[in-house]
């Protein structure tokens, strides 16, 4: 049974401030070494999905650079493999048109998707990181006889948090979708089933649903396909049981990264290998006087100072006397001597000069834009 994975590199509901100003959500660094797209790509590749299309909308420059031909995910293949689908020119009169939802992204790339010989498609967003056994998901989909399987969570790593803008699934007693509403604001809502942007169906069904929707100017997958057709199609809700990371705003991004410091949680996330682009960094050097506690640190760093409850990406330098707490430092950044950082997110290629001090709060972390000098 051949499956085509389709990953949307963008989200229409994210607000990540400076972090996605010059990059699409899928190429946002996460977990001290990875980019978000590494997780769905590796997850698919680990479960035998070797034909994957990544649909790009805008700002995909860094994503193309990161993915290249997909060698690191073992997706550089002659048969199937990775395809990065950039938009054709889309202009309405004089205005550039960005895809408004998943449907437009699919419609714009239908030529390429059509060429695939897959029987089924699995659609995935990028704002939720999960780890699914796709083989079992597909088996269940086929066994259930459903037209569409839509995966939901009702338990976000133990809490009842529901992200803003998520589709809320209202299921009948047979787990069949009866209605769908959009969550108006981020909040704790016990027993609410929210979709994690993970959909399974036959490829030809997707092709005809997209063609129909586009003919009527409809573009939102949740409202214009799932909700509208809940009555006429058998759309089955399937509960996701594993761990989740949800990234659609800056505090959520911080929380998701910090969650990885939990060793038990981390072990589950990395149970199967997560692939990313190689760098030929040296082992990280720890010097006399450094003090590290409860942190994730990548290779190529040179660390002299104090690091606590933080994630440090590759090739970061931390000077003597520097103290970094509850922070995320991205690749190739230099923190000079005696700097103090608390609840800060520092993007790539930043220099923080001696004795500078930055502090945010977990509900509003300070973000330092890529390439800045502080």
């Amino acid at each position, binding site marked *: 049974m051949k499956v085509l994975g389709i990953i949307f590199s963008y989200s229409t509901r994210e607000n990540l401030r400076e972090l996605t100003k010059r990059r699409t959500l899928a190429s946002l660094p996460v*977990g*001290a*070494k990875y980019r978000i797209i590494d997780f769905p790509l590796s997850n698919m590749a680990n479960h035998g999905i070797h034909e994957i299309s990544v649909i790009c909308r805008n700002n995909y420059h860094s994503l193309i650079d990161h993915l290249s031909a997909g*060698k690191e995910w073992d997706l550089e293949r002659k048969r199937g493999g990775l395809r990065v689908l950039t938009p054709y020119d889309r202009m309405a009169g004089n205005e550039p048109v960005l895809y408004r939802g998943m449907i437009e992204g699919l419609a714009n790339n239908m030529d390429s998707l059509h060429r695939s010989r897959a029987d089924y498609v699995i659609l995935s967003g990028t704002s939720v990181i999960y780890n699914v056994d796709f083989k079992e998901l597909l088996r269940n989909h086929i066994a259930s006889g459903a037209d569409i399987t839509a995966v939901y969570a009702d338990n976000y790593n133990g809490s009842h948090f529901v992200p803003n803008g998520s589709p809320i699934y209202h299921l009948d007693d047979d787990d069949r979708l009866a209605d769908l509403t959009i969550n108006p604001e981020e909040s704790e809502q016990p027993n609410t089933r929210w979709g994690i942007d993970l959909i399974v169906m036959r490829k030809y069904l997707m092709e005809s649903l997209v063609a129909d929707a586009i003919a009527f100017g409809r573009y939102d997958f949740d409202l214009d396909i799932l909700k509208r057709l809940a009555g006429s199609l058998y759309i089955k809700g399937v509960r996701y049981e594993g761990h989740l990371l949800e990234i659609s705003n800056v505090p959520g991004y911080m929380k998701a990264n910090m969650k990885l*410091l939990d*060793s038990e949680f*981390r072990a589950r996330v*990395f149970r199967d*290998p*997560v*692939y990313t682009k*190689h760098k*030929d960094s*040296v*082992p*990280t*050097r*720890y*010097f*006399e*006087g*450094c*003090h*590290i*506690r*409860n*942190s*994730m*640190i*990548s*290779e*190529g760093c*040179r660390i002299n100072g104090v*690091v606590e409850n933080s*994630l*440090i990406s590759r090739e970061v330098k931390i000077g003597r006397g520097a103290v970094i707490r509850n922070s995320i430092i991205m690749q190739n950044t230099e923190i000079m001597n005696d700097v103090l950082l608390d609840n800060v997110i520092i993007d790539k290629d930043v220099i923080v000069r001696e004795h500078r001090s930055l502090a945010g709060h977990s509900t509003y972390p300070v973000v330092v834009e890529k390439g800045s000098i502080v």
Partner: protein
Amino acid sequence: MFNQKKKEIIAMLLAGGQGSRLGVLTERIAKPAVPFGGKYRIIDFPLSNCVNSNIDTIGVLTQYQPLELNAYIGSGQPWDLDRIYGGAFILPPYMDSEGGQWYKGTANAIYQNMNFIDQYDPDYVLILSGDHVYKMNYADMLEYHKEKQADCTISVLQVPWEEASRFGVMNADQEMRIYEFEEKPADPKSNLASMGVYIFNWKKLKEYLIKDEADKKSDNDFGKNLIPAMLQAGERMYAYVYGGYWKDVGTIESLWQSNMDTIDPTVPLELDDPPWRIYSRSANKPPQYIGEHAELSDSGIADGCWIDGKIENSIIFSGVTVEEGATVSNSILMPRVTIRANSRIDYAIVAENSEIGEDSCIGWADEGLIMGQDGQITVVGPDLTLGNRVKVARGAIVSTELKDEEVVK
């Protein structure tokens, strides 16, 4: 074979050695495949030197336990050696219509692969060994070779006079033209020791390889036979003095020392050197996690480690676990080693996949002696499980599993 095109120079890397003085570390792998420096293997050095010197075609001559080495090299991609024309080629012994023969000596190994070399019609051939740790620009050596209009250029190291008698020594005139070669001379006339790195004019080398092969008494070795024969015939042979770091990691002690050199800022073997990167095949592990109870100093740690103990002046390869209360000092923990709680590792090498139980002591010394001071290194072989409260004396070699409370002297 595909896209015939000339190469000015290609390298032939002798990677067949058993490295028997490394004992348990090379029982199942060839010496060039021994892990080194926290994320490398020894062969990464000559391979990376080649690509950094713009040599993109390398024949790797393997014979002894090549499975892991061949898989490690694979397509050559980690070293940028997956070229359409050229790249890295594994060259094992083979049979032809007259039958097959194993590589008898270093020169014979090249002799048997003359067809491979001829495919590229090179002007020069660089002969390398797969068991030395050094960073060297072979392009500079080639420049020198051309300037001297040499038939053969031999890279040499100036060693302390008192050590010269342990090496193959080149006696050269003021122009650095070699007039004599002495293998481990009792009374050395020079302190220029051969590094086992040669550039030959290919036509000339081919001629001597054929002569050497015809000589039934020859050991078919570069140092013992081919170089002396060329000298005797009066060929233009020059010494090229290399001034950087170089180490033959042929013994446990030199392997340990050379590893430690990578984290010693006073030794010129900096690995964090972007214009001269040492490439390696990545283990693809998540970032290292440093726990609540860790204490780290003067160490290099690779990805995929889980460290909650104390690490001091040590090299920790990827996937290593060090539990709370454990202390690792002056040691090398190879990939996927586990050190259980409250154990002590000092002046030791623990090989891949081995596990040391709780409250154990590796590198244990009699009272009154400070551990490791006499230069002895303890070795735990690969894939072994040692129990709890085990004691292994300084300098001992462990090659079998140990039960709880066993003591090895």
